[in-house]
């Protein structure tokens, strides 16, 4: 087990976002967090990475309690791709190299540069390495920030709506890359998503959030019309196309 969450609770002043969250994630597993806007999907990811401090509960990564790790140690285990990222003025290589920050002492080593180069190659970005970020398309930019998280050599990837604002081709490309890396390197990924069909294509497990609770969690068996309708208040049917379930709003 790569991640274990026990009794996690977060609240803003005067408002509980979620409480009593318990779940685990295994190596090689992709977990999709689903739910309506404002239900606390992004907040949950930030609590798993100590960007936000939970009110209660513990989070273990590979048996290490994250509150006892230094920020640098945590960054060596968890790669985080924020929903919003600043388009800084630097080259693709520099932007990805920044992911080595948790390992850099005084200056970048040859190894840091080689790992950056290797990840750029995996994500087919190496021809862009000296291009500036503001010259890239949305899809290319998303791949750059995922590459930055990957050079952290994490055990766990946290991706906050990585496919929002991308066209269909780029959505598929980005989720396929993440899936390939998760399976190939036997790490884990937790991804917040809105597109249920994309989630079905991508994830091994699903977790529906509703009213600050885990409404349903599990494999494809939780992707039922009742669960989807209850969470999103939209009636749906689940069709099958080539043995893959497809969520169709009515």
């Amino acid at each position, binding site marked *: 087990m790569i991640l274990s969450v026990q009794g996690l609770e977060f609240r803003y002043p005067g408002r509980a976002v979620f409480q009593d969250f318990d779940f685990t994630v295994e190596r090689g597993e992709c977990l999709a967090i689903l739910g309506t806007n404002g239900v606390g999907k992004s907040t949950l990811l*930030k609590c798993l*990475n*100590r*960007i936000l401090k939970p009110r209660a509960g513990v989070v273990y990564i590979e048996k290490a309690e994250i509150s006892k790790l*230094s*920020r*640098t*140690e*945590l*960054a*060596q285990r*968890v*790669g*985080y*791709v*924020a929903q*919003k*990222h*600043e388009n*800084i*003025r*630097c*080259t693709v*290589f*520099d*932007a990805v190299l*920044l*992911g080595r*920050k*948790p390992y*850099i002492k005084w*200056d970048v080593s*040859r*190894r840091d*540069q*080689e*790992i950056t*180069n*290797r*990840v*750029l*190659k995996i994500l087919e970005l*190496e021809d862009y*390495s*000296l291009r*500036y970020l503001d010259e890239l398309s949305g899809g290319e930019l998303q791949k750059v*920030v995922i590459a*930055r*998280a*990957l*050079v*952290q*050599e*994490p*055990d766990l990837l*946290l991706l906050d709506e990585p496919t929002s604002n991308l066209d269909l081709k780029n959505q598929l490309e980005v989720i396929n890359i993440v899936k390939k890396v998760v399976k190939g*390197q*036997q*790490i884990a990924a937790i991804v917040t998503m809105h597109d249920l069909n994309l989630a079905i294509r991508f994830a091994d497990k699903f977790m529906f959030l509703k009213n600050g609770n885990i409404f349903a969690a599990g494999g494809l068996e939780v992707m039922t019309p009742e669960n989807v309708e209850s969470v999103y208040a939209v009636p749906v049917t689940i069709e099958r196309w080539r043995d893959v379930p497809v969520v169709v709003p009515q």
Partner: protein
Amino acid sequence: MKKVAATPGRPGRLEIYQHYTGKKKVIILLMSLLTAILAVLAINSGGMDLNPFQVVMAILGQGNPVSDVVIWNIRLPRVMAGVIAGAGLSVAGCVMQNNLRNPLASPSTLGISNAAAFGANMAIIVFGAGSIQSASTDAVIINNPYIVTITAFMWSIIATMIIILLARFRDFSPEAMILAGVAISSLFSAGIILIQYFAQDTQIAAVVFWTFGDLGRASWREVIIMGILVGLAIIYFMLMRWDYNALDSGEETAKGLGVNVARVRLGGMLVSSLITAAAVSFLGIIGFIGLVGPQIMRRVIGGDHRFLIPASALMGALILLASDIMARTIITPIVLPVGAITSFLGAPLFLYLLARGYKRR
């Protein structure tokens, strides 16, 4: 995680990247050389007729007794003060722009300069440290410069502490810091007006003279104090350069990369304020360098703080040295206020680079 093996991809790629960063190092090297040349020219310019060779010989201890006295006691402290204060103000602006996530941030954003000016007003008007002497070549003299400097420095530090205490309640968010800075700045401006309202004409003249900013006020003592402070500050900033790069990518991304954002901001603002306070207290108000120095270099060398920090420091030194040469030579023997010249030099250069856009490679 199965660690990514450190095997080289296409060997050419890394070499291309190293060539790219090498070009930035060359720019910094050329700027250092230019600073040294300009420093010699700055020492050379003035009333006494010297040539650059004599200047270099005097610096190396091989000059004649008269040139030695002029260079070592008058011109060298002035030029060193220019290099150090220019580098300090510019590098402080560079870090403030990053920490506050605001391209218009500069050492004056947090009201440190206003606080120092308030201190100088208090020293000159309330403690009677300044007056007018009509027989002197300088109409206005500050009787007791140390009281002025100490009071100015003290109020700068008080202002810094107030801003940091206020910003602490909002976890050192850039908005909280800028708003606290604006409030403090306005508070000290009001204080200056009130003190000046009750002052005599001669005292107001002395205060205005102080605020002009003048490198000639620095003796070796001030140069050494400023040199140590600015030197330590640059080392600190260089140690934090990866944190600043991460902060440029957004607060959440920086936290995800292991950066303690609040602590980085607190340190950056504290050290920037300290060197600003020292420069302003010793030399008076020298504006625009903290804004324009880093902005020029951001366009020339890019936003990577590994290169931007030293390049900003050198650009600040270059602007202040060039301004001081102009201030002393445009209408000799009258020495113009260097602060006005920095703006005259910096503003058109800044506008030119802005119009030209970012340099691509």
